[in-house]
C-alpha cells in the first residue's frame, strides 16, 4: 500500500510536466497576446512589440518555459503581469470559494444521484424509473450556463427566493475560506443560512450533469448486482429487501459509481468555470476566465496546473477507495 502510494505520487511528476507543456503551448496558440490585451486594439504594432519585449514574451519559447518551470519547482506560481498580484495569494482566496461550490455540488449530485439510481433500479420499468432516467438525460444534455440563467430568472428575479449571485457576506473571521465552515465555527446561524442560500442555485446548477451521470450509473450497476447469485442467496436467508439492498447490493454496486464520481469531480472543474461566470462566484473559474481573456499566460498556466493536480489526486483517492470497497483488490 505504501509503495503503491509512493509510486502513484511519483507519477504525478511526469503528468504535471506533460500538462505544463501542453498548457504552455496551447495558451500561446490562442490568437492575441498579453500586450494587445493590455493596450487594446488601438495600439500600434511597435507599441505591442515593445510591451511584449518588456514582459519577456519575445524570448524563445524554450527559454520562457524553462524560466517558468524553474520558478514552479521553487514553489512560486508566478504573478499576474496585469494586476501584479501573485497567483499563490489569489489561490488562497479563490480556491476555497471553488472548493465550497464544488463540494456542495458533489454532495448534492452523489446523494441525489445514488438515491435516484437505487429507486429507479428497484422500481425498474415503473414511471419513477422512466421519469428519473428521462430527467437524467435532460440533465446531461442541458447547457449549464443556460440552466443557470433560467434558474436565476425564476428563483432570484421573479420569485425573490434566492440571491442571484456571489457568495454573500464573508464571515468576520475567515479561517478555512469555506464560508459554511467558518460560520459554523463562529456559531453564526444567520450567516450560515445566508451562505447556504447563496450556494443553492450555483450548487444545484453545477450538480446537474454529475447528478444525471451518477443516477444512470447507479441504476445500471444496481441492476447488474441485483441479478447476481449472491443476492438470491441473501434472499434465501430470509433477509428483508432493504437489508439485501443495503448490505449485499450497495457495496458491490458502488465500485462503478465511485469511478464515475471521481471522473465527474474532474469534469466539475470545467463546469465550475461556466457556473462561476454565470453566478459571479469569486472562485477559480472566474479567475482563470479573466486570465484567459487578458492572455495572462502565467496565471492560466499555474491555475491549470493546480486543476491538474487536483484531478490526479481525486483519481488517486478513487483508486484507493476500490481497495476499501472490494477486498479482492490489493495494491502493492
Amino acid at each position, binding site marked *: 500500500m505504501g509503495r503503491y502510494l509512493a509510486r502513484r505520487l511519483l507519477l504525478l511528476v511526469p503528468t504535471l510536466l506533460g500538462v505544463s507543456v501542453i498548457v504552455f503551448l496551447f495558451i500561446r496558440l490562442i490568437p492575441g497576446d498579453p500586450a494587445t490585451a493590455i493596450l487594446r486594439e488601438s495600439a500600434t504594432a511597435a507599441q505591442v512589440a515593445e510591451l511584449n519585449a518588456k514582459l519577456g514574451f519575445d524570448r524563445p519559447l524554450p527559454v520562457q518555459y524553462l524560466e517558468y518551470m524553474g520558478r514552479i519547482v521553487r514553489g512560486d506560481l508566478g504573478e499576474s503581469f496585469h494586476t501584479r498580484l501573485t497567483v499563490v495569494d489569489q489561490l488562497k482566496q479563490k480556491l476555497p470559494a471553488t472548493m465550497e461550490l464544488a463540494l456542495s455540488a458533489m454532495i448534492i449530485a452523489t446523494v441525489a444521484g445514488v438515491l435516484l439510481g437505487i429507486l429507479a433500479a428497484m422500481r425498474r420499468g415503473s414511471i419513477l424509473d422512466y421519469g428519473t432516467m428521462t430527467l437524467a438525460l435532460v440533465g446531461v444534455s442541458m447547457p449549464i450556463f443556460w440552466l443557470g440563467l433560467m434558474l436565476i430568472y425564476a428563483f432570484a428575479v421573479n420569485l425573490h427566493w434566492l440571491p442571484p449571485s456571489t457568495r454573500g457576506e464573508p464571515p468576520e473571521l475567515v479561517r478555512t475560506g469555506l464560508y459554511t465552515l467558518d460560520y459554523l465555527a463562529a456559531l453564526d446561524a444567520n450567516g450560515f443560512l445566508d451562505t447556504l442560500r447563496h450556494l443553492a442555485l450555483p450548487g444545484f446548477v453545477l450538480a446537474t450533469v454529475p447528478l444525471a451521470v451518477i443516477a444512470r450509473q447507479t441504476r445500471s450497476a444496481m441492476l447488474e448486482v441485483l441479478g447476481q*447469485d449472491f443476492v438470491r442467496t*441473501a434472499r*434465501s*436467508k*430470509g*433477509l428483508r429487501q432493504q437489508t439485501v439492498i443495503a448490505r449485499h447490493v450497495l*457495496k*458491490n454496486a458502488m465500485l462503478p459509481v465511485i469511478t464515475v464520481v471521481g471522473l465527474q469531480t474532474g469534469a466539475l472543474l470545467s463546469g465550475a468555470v461556466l457556473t462561476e461566470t454565470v453566478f459571479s462566484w469569486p472562485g477559480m473559474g472566474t479567475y482563470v476566465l479573466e486570465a484567459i481573456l487578458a492572455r495572462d499566460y502565467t496565471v492560466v498556466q499555474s491555475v491549470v496546473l493546480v486543476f491538474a493536480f487536483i484531478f490526479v489526486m481525486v483519481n488517486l483517492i478513487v483508486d484507493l477507495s476500490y481497495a476499501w470497497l*472490494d477486498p479482492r483488490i490489493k495494491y502493492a
Partner: protein
Amino acid sequence: MPELLEVRDLHTQFFTRDGIVRAVDGVSFTLAAGETLGIVGESGCGKSVTALSLMRLIPQPPGKITQGEILFDGRDVLKMDDDEVRGIRGNAIAMIFQDPMTSLNPVLTISRQVSEALELHLKMDRNESRKRTIELLELVGIPSAKSRLDDYPHQFSGGMRQRVMIAMALSCNPKLILADEPTTALDVTIQAQILDLLKNLAREFRTAFILITHDLGVVAGMTQRIHVMYGGHIVEKADTNELFANPKHPYTWGLLRSIPRLDQTRREKLRPIEGLPPDLIAPPPGCRFAPRCQYKRDICDEKPPELVAVPNAKADHESRCWGTQTGGWLTTTDWRTDTTVFTKVEA
C-alpha cells in the same frame, strides 16, 4: 409419519415476450420429516424452478406461481404474507445453490454471511453468532475455522466455499434443505466429499433434504426416493433402489443409458438421448417426451399420460407413460436387454 412438505399441483410460469413458459406444470409430491428425495432431470426441466418455488424465490416478474399448494408443516407457503415467508427462509427451509463461486457475496466476510441468518432468526447478538459460526465452520470441515472467520470468499477454494454454503444452510437447524446441483460446479474429487458431508450432516440433524441434480449417479447413494422430471412434469417416482433396478419410463432409461460404464467395452459408444427438450411455451399435446421417444405409438402424440402406479413394480412406483402403464406395450420391456435402442429416432 406426518408429512413435512406436501406439494400439490404446483404450476410456476414465466411471462416472457415470446409467450408463457410453463416451467413447472402440475408437480405434486410429498416429503416426510427427515426424508431425503432426489429430483433428477436435464437442464430446463423445471427442477430448480420447483425448488425456488418452495421458498417463493421465483423472480417476479417475469415468474409467477399460478396454481397449486405448498403445504409446509401443514401451512400453505403460497398463502403466507411476506413476513411469514421470510420467517421460513433460511430458518425452517434453507437452500444450497449450484455455484459457490457466485453464490457468496464477494465483499462480505465469511462470518458476516454465515452469521446473518443466526442474528435474524435466532436473535443472536454478534458475539454469540460469531461463536456459533466457528462451530458451524468446524462442523462442515473447514480447517482452523476460527482464524478464517474474517476471510473473504475469494480466499477459499470452490469446495471450501460450498462447505461455507452448507454451514450457512445448516445454521438455523432447518427442517428441510434444498440442494440445487450442489456439486455441479466442483471438481469430481471434491464432489464426493461434499455429497458425503451433506448426507452425514442431514442424517445427524435429521434434516429432510431435496437434492436436485441432472446426474443420476449423484443421487444413487444419497436419497431414499427419486423423482424424475421432464418438461415441467414429474415423469417417474420411485424408491431409489427400485428406480435403478426397475425403471419404468423411457426417459429414465435414456438417462441410465447415457451414464458411462466402466465395465463397458471400448467399442461401445455413449448413447445420448436424441433430440432436444420440449419447448415449454408450446409443449407437445401428448406425452412431452414422445418426440424423443423411440418406443412411442400414436396415442403418445395425441393424449398426455397421467402419472400412475405401474404394474410389475413396487406399490409406490409411478410413471407417466402410456407404454409402461397397465395394458401398455412396454410393461415387460427391460431397458438393459432391449435391442431397439440402437435404432436412431427421427428428431
